[in-house]
């Protein structure tokens, strides 16, 4: 094996004897060639054995030459005996050099004491097939994938223990460690499994992919191995409400950084014990990144809330704007759930006319993600055919950042309205004509009583930019207004117990009330208009 050098021999020998798999051995020798890891485990094992044999032959010849330090070492180790503690006070399995072959045989076919099988069976063809079966049956549309793996925290503990064993061995032999940038377990795992997954699924692995295949591994047999860290470094382990176990990977890694070598070796066997079982793949899950659909909606009903109106489990009004729009989208995109947001809202009894109000729907974990402009048009038509209470236009796929633009509109842009107003005392045309001339009327609006139970008490300054009146009869007229975003129109008309000043009542010196309100336009130029 050309990637291994003289200096690696004791490491390879030690790890092989203590039950570490060939791939982990390569990692500990800092072998960076990805291709090498993809060789079958049996082949790697043979190569390592070959590598060691060469070493052994050299040693034997040296020994035959008489009393030599290596031979002395052998004799010393034999006299010490297998259960003796060395001067560091640590349990140590003494590697017996002549027993090399026997030790290697006992490692072969057993679960690795460092990776617990992750770099053994858990990246072989059978496992790959299992994952791909899950992916294919989940029926997702994807062009690439990102594979994320969650490893049990005790792996970090075992890795540390094995590494300390290696360091100790090197110290005992009077050698210095040539390198200490071990190849990370997860990295090696991905080197091995990505090409196989890629081939089975027919698409490349891409770190930026929106389609995520995630596997959670667990090894219940050794779960308690992390517990000693809680007594050694108690402040690393705070019980978090959401997580089942306090021993998260992050917490364990933090504790391992803090704990001193001596303390670690006091509580954990070095080298790590040989496990009976492999890691289990607890969960194999697929998830697609969210997709965003935007458009503008018109609302023609005076009996439709924007979101479902449910009190104490009872639905007060049938359906809602968001349900009417998202029902079809959910079905087409086959998503788990949706989040509806819009550039402002209107009351149940207010219509939205004109170009409509911009909205965006986030479809969570959609199975289908690719839609042509034609398909979107058909989807829009389907929504419009299904209900006369709402209509949508400019339906299109957008990016997540687009939502920001829409919310901008909510606070900054103007809206125009049409209100049907009633007055108690009679009015003549002359009485309301002056309203048309009022520009930039400043209002002080206290939080309306009708929302005061769920909003903080405050005074809002809002501006009515322009007004245009249409006389109907002695007690009715229609008022068209263009206002700043966030203006309460109904309160401007009836005055809200005098808490909105000025108001139509105070301007006309009468008692006024609002009979009907329509949104004529929402002056946001997003999403882009399509030729519908």
């Amino acid at each position, binding site marked *: 094996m050309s990637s291994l050098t003289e200096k690696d021999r004791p490491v390879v020998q030690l790890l092989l004897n203590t039950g570490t798999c060939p791939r982990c051995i390569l990692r500990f020798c800092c072998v960076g060639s990805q291709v090498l890891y993809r060789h079958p485990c049996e082949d790697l094992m043979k190569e390592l054995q070959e590598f060691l044999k060469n070493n052994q032959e050299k040693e034997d010849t040296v020994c035959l030459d008489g009393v030599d330090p290596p031979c002395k070492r052998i004799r010393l180790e034999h006299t010490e005996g297998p259960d003796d503690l060395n001067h560091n006070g640590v349990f140590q399995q003494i590697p017996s050099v002549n027993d090399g072959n026997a030790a290697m045989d006992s490692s072969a076919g057993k679960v690795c004491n460092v990776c617990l099988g992750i770099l053994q069976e858990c990246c072989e063809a059978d496992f790959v097939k299992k994952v791909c079966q899950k992916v294919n049956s989940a029926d997702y549309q994807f062009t690439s994938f990102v594979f994320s793996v969650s490893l049990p925290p005790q792996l970090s503990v075992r890795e540390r223990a094995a590494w300390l064993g290696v360091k100790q061995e090197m110290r005992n032999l009077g050698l210095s460690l040539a390198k200490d940038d071990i190849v990370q377990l997860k990295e090696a795992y991905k080197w091995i499994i990505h090409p196989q997954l890629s081939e089975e699924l027919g698409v490349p692995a891409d770190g930026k992919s929106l389609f995520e295949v995630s596997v959670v591994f667990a090894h219940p047999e050794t779960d308690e191995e992390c517990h000693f860290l809680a007594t050694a470094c108690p402040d690393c382990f705070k019980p978090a409400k959401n997580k089942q176990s306090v021993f998260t990977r992050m917490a364990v890694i933090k504790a391992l950084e803090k704990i001193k070598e001596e303390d670690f070796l006091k509580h954990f066997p070095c080298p790590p014990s040989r496990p009976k079982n492999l890691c289990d793949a607890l969960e194999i899950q697929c998830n697609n990144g969210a997709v965003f659909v935007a458009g503008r909606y018109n609302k023609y009903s005076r009996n439709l809330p924007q979101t479902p109106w449910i009190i104490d489990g009872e639905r007060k009004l049938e359906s809602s704007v968001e349900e009417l729009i998202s029902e079809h989208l959910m079905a087409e995109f086959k998503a788990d759930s949706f989040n509806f947001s819009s550039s402002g809202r209107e009351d149940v009894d207010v219509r939205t006319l004109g170009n409509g109000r911009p909205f965006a729907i986030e479809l969570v974990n959609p199975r289908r993600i690719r839609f042509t402009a034609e398909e979107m048009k058909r989807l829009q038509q389907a929504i419009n055919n299904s209900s006369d209470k709402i209509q949508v236009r400019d339906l299109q796929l957008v990016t997540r950042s687009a939502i920001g633009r829409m919310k901008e509109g909510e606070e900054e842009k103007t809206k125009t309205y049409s209100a049907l107003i009633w007055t108690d005392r009679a009015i003549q045309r002359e009485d309301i004509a002056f309203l048309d001339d009022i520009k930039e009327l400043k209002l002080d609006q*206290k939080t309306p*009583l*009708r929302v*005061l*139970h*769920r*909003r*903080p*008490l405050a005074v809002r300054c809002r501006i009515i930019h322009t007004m245009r009146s249409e006389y109907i009869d002695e007690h009715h007229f229609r008022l068209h207004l263009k206002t700043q975003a966030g203006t309460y129109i109904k309160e401007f008309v009836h*005055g809200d*117990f*005098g808490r909105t000043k000025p108001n139509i009542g105070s301007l006309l010196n009468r*008692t006024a009330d609002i009979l009907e309100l329509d949104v004529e336009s929402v002056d946001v130029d997003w999403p882009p208009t399509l030729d519908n």
Partner: protein
Amino acid sequence: RICVITLAEAHPLLQSGKTIKSISYQISANCSRLQNKVSGKSKRGAQFLTELAPLCRISSSDGEEYTIYSCIRGRLIEVNENILSNPSLLQQKPSTEGYIAVVLPKFEESKSITQGLLTQKEYEEVLLKRRNSSS
């Protein structure tokens, strides 16, 4: 449920002949309803009112003084400062611009409070009985 406290239509102050001299929200040496400050959605810092908590005292020009009580348990959200500057509002528009105070009862008590109130009809029956018994 938000509650707006106003003068009942049968209140002496709303009968003809009465003029309001002054209105004061100073209930006691330590307590002025004008100092009520609420913050946030849950209206923290609000003065808590019980049924018999006084909201304000109103003096009429004929020397009478009337204390207006909350009649409802809850947090005091605001008192109407407009009637301080314009007392006639109270008499001309007692049920709208001339309101006294806004109170927000506890969510759990909301239903029981509503049930303890009289409907317009029930109130009119009370007034009818009152008139009949006095005549």
